[in-house]
């Protein structure tokens, strides 16, 4: 009995140490009768790629925006690196945010800056000890990792949709985040570019050992990148498992995502 108990405690400790994101009873509504999240419970382990599926308007983007407090949760606990971010002051929150990267749906590149300036912008503010050569090297390295080193002096308006996503990813990577949140990374891209972006997400996870939450409608992306998938319906997580498990789910609604 005793060794088994110890084993259970160890497992619990191990599980706790491995969990980088833990969401409990998360509620969010926008005005009366518009409850978007109704008690979401979710954990993400270190190094895991979690894919969040769900119909448009089911609250997927709101969920990841709550993780960086771009949207304030109404109720519930959001623990990132074992810190409840809902109670943090601005400085402490920014310290957590620096460890999280966020790739926006339309990349959100700063229109008035070149690609170089887009990457320099966060780096120079948060890594003041770097000299100009080291800044340049970090920019080249980030651009190399997304295969777009030759676009360094281009303006965002000169880039295609896929290139914008890659540059957005490079800007996210330059601060070396431990968690990356992807908001529909392949939306609006052709099949080939979508696959390239999905492969890039996977390569980044393998290279940098990052933890990721990927919100997508693209099942090819979900299959390629997801270690685990969860499905959000009417503000709650209704299904969880690997791609193969959910594909064979007994619930017809869950299966409909895979057809």
């Amino acid at each position, binding site marked *: 009995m005793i060794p088994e108990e110890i084993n259970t405690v160890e497992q619990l400790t191990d599980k706790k140490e491995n969990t980088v994101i833990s969401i409990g009873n998360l509620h969010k509504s926008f005005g009366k009768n518009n409850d978007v999240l109704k008690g979401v419970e979710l954990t993400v382990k270190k190094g895991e790629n979690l894919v969040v599926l769900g119909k448009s308007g089911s609250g997927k983007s709101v969920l990841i925006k709550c993780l*960086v407090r771009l949207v304030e949760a109404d109720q519930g606990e959001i623990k990132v690196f074992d810190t409840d971010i809902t109670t943090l002051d601005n400085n402490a929150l*920014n310290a957590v*945010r620096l460890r999280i990267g966020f790739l*926006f*749906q339309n990349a*959100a590149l700063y*229109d008035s800056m070149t690609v170089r300036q887009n990457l320099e912008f*966060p780096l120079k503010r*948060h890594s003041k000890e770097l000299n100009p050569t080291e800044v340049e090297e970090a920019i080249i390295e980030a651009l190399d990792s997304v295969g777009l080193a030759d676009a360094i002096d281009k303006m965002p308006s000169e880039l295609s949709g896929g290139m914008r996503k890659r540059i957005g990813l490079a800007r996210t990577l330059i601060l070396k985040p431990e968690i990356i949140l992807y908001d529909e990374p392949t939306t609006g891209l052709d099949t080939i570019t979508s696959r390239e972006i999905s492969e890039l997400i996977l390569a980044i996870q393998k290279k940098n050992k990052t933890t990721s939450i990927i919100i997508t409608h693209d099942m090819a992306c979900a299959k390629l990148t997801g270690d685990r998938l969860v499905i959000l319906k009417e503000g709650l997580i209704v299904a969880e498992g690997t791609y193969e498990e959910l594909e064979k789910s007994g619930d017809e609604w869950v299966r409909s995502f895979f057809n």
Partner: protein
Amino acid sequence: MVIYLKSIFNDAGNVTLFTARFFKEVLKPPFEIKEFIRQCYTIGYKSLPLVGITGFIMGLVLTLQSRPTLAEFGAESWLPGMVALSLIREIAPVITALICAGKISSGIGAELGSMKVTEQIDAMEVSAINPYKYLVVTRILATTLMVPLLVIFADGIGILGGYIGINIHSDVNLVRYFSQVLASLDFIDILPATIKTFFFGFFIGMIGCYKGFTAANGTESVGKAANSAVVAASLIIFIIDMLAVQITDLFM
């Protein structure tokens, strides 16, 4: 009616909080000096041609329109002084501020509005960069500093326009013209007029930033932000002008 009033009070409250945040953030480091200089260049230097042309036309037209009336009373010699006083006290500050409301306030509203809609402001926030400090504080400081300089520039060009206007019908020497202009001006004419332009500049920047920063999602809101910024800034300019005149009047 109640809903309309509620939205007005809501807006007033939000603008007040937005303004209060400016005073809280402006003295806190880090200071975005580079962005502030860039904004001064964009807001000040790039507005020079527009303000210059308008100032020249104001001076010229004012002279041509006033001359016949003064000539009727045989007071044509008062023309330089009258033009300079009108320009410096009232016309140049208000017209320049209105032009800046149209050009700068709407530009800021549209720029920040589109940044908001395309999630660029959110991107700054998740990178642990304070977007209010980088985007709003720098722009408000730049307008507060640049609008008075633009008004002084418009004053100068307007007075020069007045000189050309006088010389269309008569022959006045440049030195004599300027000596008459300077003789007609007092310190009390220049100081209140200059002080109010700082307020004009502050509110032009503040309203543009507020409208852009609080734009709703969707491209339609970018147009609305730009449009409502011009309307609100123009109205505020007249209100400040009225208050400034009343206050100045107390000391004269």
